[in-house]
């Protein structure tokens, strides 16, 4: 049972931290995009 908890925690922490990084990045991107004209975004 102890093993199950540690294994589950490993997966939750791994996927959770990646999801958090993705959410923070996308939120920052959306926030900045509002202040930058589209002509200054070379990926568009």
């Amino acid at each position, binding site marked *: 049972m*102890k*093993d*199950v908890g*540690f*294994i589950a*925690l*490993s*997966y939750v*922490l*791994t*996927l959770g*931290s*990646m999801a958090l*990084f*993705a959410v923070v*990045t*996308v939120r*920052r*991107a*959306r926030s*900045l*995009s*509002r*202040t*930058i004209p*589209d002509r*200054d*975004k*070379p*990926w*568009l």
Partner: protein
Amino acid sequence: MTTITTPTTSRSTSTTATRVLGTVALVLMAWVVVSGLFLTPADVVQLESVRIMYVHVPSAWIAYLAFVTTAVASAISLFRRHRSLGFDRVAGASAEVGVLFMAITLVTGSLWGRLTWGTFWQWDPRLTTTAFLFVTYVGYLAIRRLDGTPRQRARRSAILALLAVLEIPLVHFSVVLWRSLHQEASVLNTDGDVRLDGLMLFTLFSGVIAFSAAFAWFVVHRQRVAAMEDLRLTSGLDVALAERRAEAIPS
């Protein structure tokens, strides 16, 4: 007509290509979770705790990949100065993602160590050099946030990145160079003998591909965010300079 580089919304850093990449990463990640937790067999020695390997090992490999990417992008940025700051932003974005994956490696390794060694931490050569690598790149990210223009930032952080990447061989071969509690590599070992069951190996490589796709997605988005931050910084400096010049002109 939609092309591969057409943005899905004018306010976003995403394009059709990054959405496809993100979807691939999510699907593969789901497979790794299902296979790693439910389909693969337990190990004869480590029993169920071996399931941590499917997130721990890919995290470590992707952290290495991220730091090597940072070094290569930094070298291009440093030695080909006529180019834009794009490579410097890729270096910074890749280092951020590398620090994330290195942190995951340390935490999952600590949990795995508690199950197999009976302790969360030991000042063992592999663990110590990995922690040192992590701290070095946290320092690299701190250096990137020092005051200065984007070009000054690019030069000083590129030099540090080219020095920091030299730690990676030390970390990887620490288990061979010194007596270590950490096991030697099961796949990338020196004798070429892969010591893993077929499904275990397949799941491990699926994890590497899934994490690689996630790494690429993170770096693309993060360097676009950095481009917008630089633009805002330089336009802010231009406005401040114009205001100072206007003040200096006698009315």
